[in-house]
């Protein structure tokens, strides 16, 4: 919103999973441009390659073929440490099953990216508390995930994704494990974040969600259809 610089540029990206016996071509030549401040949804049938795409966008995995530029930097060939740094500083992940550390408190979970980022203890605590307040969990900081509802767990995960001020927030079916009401709250929260300037991409099966975002990408059999440009 604030700036229109390109944050993601995919050029003919392929991803082949080689399981030994069979090769699965999960992505078959994906081209994609995402500019800073966009709010996108990615939809498509199960197995079409949505999560695969997201893993590549988030530098959790690398393309088999094609090029990926993240903020102008070519991702292939970067060291494991550099990739970890990008995930740490630039990307915030939100998963369907929350992926919180079960034995750590909400605050500790939120502090973890800052731990990896080398933020000093005091500042870590302050920022952790702020971001938990922001997602409405100011009174649940010392609760373990087992002591929280699904919606609350997902808020912790969102707080954790936000805390290092990433350039990009990637959410893989963030409402998939939630009832309609809490799912709605989470979507509202994303909308708020987008309005505050974050770039957000949400994978979803919820047919209503695309209506609230700027742009919808349709994925089928490893390819994007009528994605670029639509909704603008």
């Amino acid at each position: 919103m604030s700036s229109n610089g390109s944050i993601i540029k995919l050029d003919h990206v392929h991803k082949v999973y080689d399981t030994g016996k069979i090769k699965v071509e999960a992505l078959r030549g994906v081209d994609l441009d995402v500019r800073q401040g966009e709010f996108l949804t990615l939809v498509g049938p199960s197995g079409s390659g949505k999560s695969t795409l997201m893993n590549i966008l988030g530098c959790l995995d690398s393309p088999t073929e094609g090029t990926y530029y993240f903020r102008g930097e070519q991702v292939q060939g970067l060291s494991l440490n550099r990739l970890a740094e990008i995930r740490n500083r630039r990307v915030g992940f939100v998963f369907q099953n929350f992926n919180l550390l079960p034995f750590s408190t909400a605050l500790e979970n939120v502090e973890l990216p800052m731990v990896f980022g080398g933020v000093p203890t005091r500042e870590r605590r302050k920022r952790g508390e702020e971001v938990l307040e922001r997602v409405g969990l100011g009174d649940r900081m010392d609760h373990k995930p087992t002591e929280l509802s699904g919606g609350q767990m997902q808020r912790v995960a969102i707080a954790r994704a936000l805390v290092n001020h990433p350039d990009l927030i990637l959410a893989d079916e963030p409402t998939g494990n939630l009832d309609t009401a809490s799912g709605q709250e989470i979507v509202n929260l994303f909308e708020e974040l987008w309005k505050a300037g974050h770039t957000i991409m949400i994978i979803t099966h919820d047919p209503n969600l695309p209506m609230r975002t700027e742009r919808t990408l349709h994925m089928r059999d490893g390819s994007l259809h009528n994605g670029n440009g639509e909704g603008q």
Partner: protein
Amino acid sequence: MGLLTFLRYFWNDFRKQKKRATLTVAAIVWGTMSILLLLAFGEGLKRQLDRNQRGLGENIMIVWGGQTSMPYEGLPRGRRIRFMEEDVDVIQKSIPQIENIGAEYSRWGVDVVRGSKVLSEHVCGEYPTYEQMRAHYPMQGGRYINWTDMEEKRRVIFLGYEMKQKLFGDEDATGQTVHVSGIPFTVIGVGQDKQQMGMYGGPDVSKGSMPATTFKSLFGHKYLSNLVIQPRSTNLNEVVERRLNEVLGARLKFHPDDEQALSIWDTIEGRKAMQNMMLGMQIFMGIIGAMTLLIAGVGVANIMYVVIKERTKEIGIKMALGGKPRIVQWQFLLEAMIICFSGGVIGIFISQLICDLMSLIPREEGSSMTWLGNPTISLPIGMITIAILAIIAVIAGYFPSRRAAMLNPAETLRYE
């Protein structure tokens, strides 16, 4: 990332697998104890052997006359070679490599009488040098034969510990009188009770010793029973042996190459051989112990693989949040090292406790307990064990933790 923060998070993760950690620690405890106790028992055995060898005397050669096996200067083979007191002086003067020399006369079945107690015993006439060379150390309050006793042919006797017990019981014997072959002798001292591994002519504790000169005039022996020689250093034994053959050969007329003219018991060689054997045994025991510890180490590595498998999801989460491979690796490496370290510390502690308890068990001299009952954890043993532990800890941690660090983040997150 600050070390403290790292450790705090590490501890959070580590805490929750107490049960598995406990089992692994137990394996390391067991391995550490095996190596330590095997080595400690070996060390105890070695020390006991050493002590018993010292009962005979340290670094001495005992020389008996034999029979010639080569003709020499017209004399036939088969002649008996025997020594007299004059030979002792000649040897000392002609062989500078000798530090100390002594000799003894010996006689069995000598009447030793005290009051109503009549014994038939082994009695020797000895040189004062026997005190140091043959470990004839007196108990508190007494003394061994000295040179004045020798010169004045005093009627004094030094009793072995058991002979004294037979004659006097627990009474103090020093200063009292016993009759040897009907002649009154003053007891000047009683030998310390001692373990004696090598011996000739029976154990020292059950004989009586008088000055060689006194013995000679009392019993009229012409020939000494044997000589005892101590070289100036332990590597001079072969030189001394050859010079003995030359010097005595010239004097008593036998060929210096005649191997049967003198019969020499070189305890120095024996001691060296024994020390080598003990070293071999300790190495062997050490290897067995190290194997046990190694197996425990394999167990740790194995458990680490399982732990990593179970915590794949956690690893994936950390990687997604920007945890670098190095941090993941350190987490598991540290875990393995903590397991090994705590196992090692507990193992060392328990082993020391066992050694301490063993030393409290009362034991009779000469029973099997004297050989087994003195396990000793010496400094080198401790250091060897700790070094092996450290190596095993690093190896057991390195490979699994490396595997964890090299996992593909996307794959780990898919793992359920």
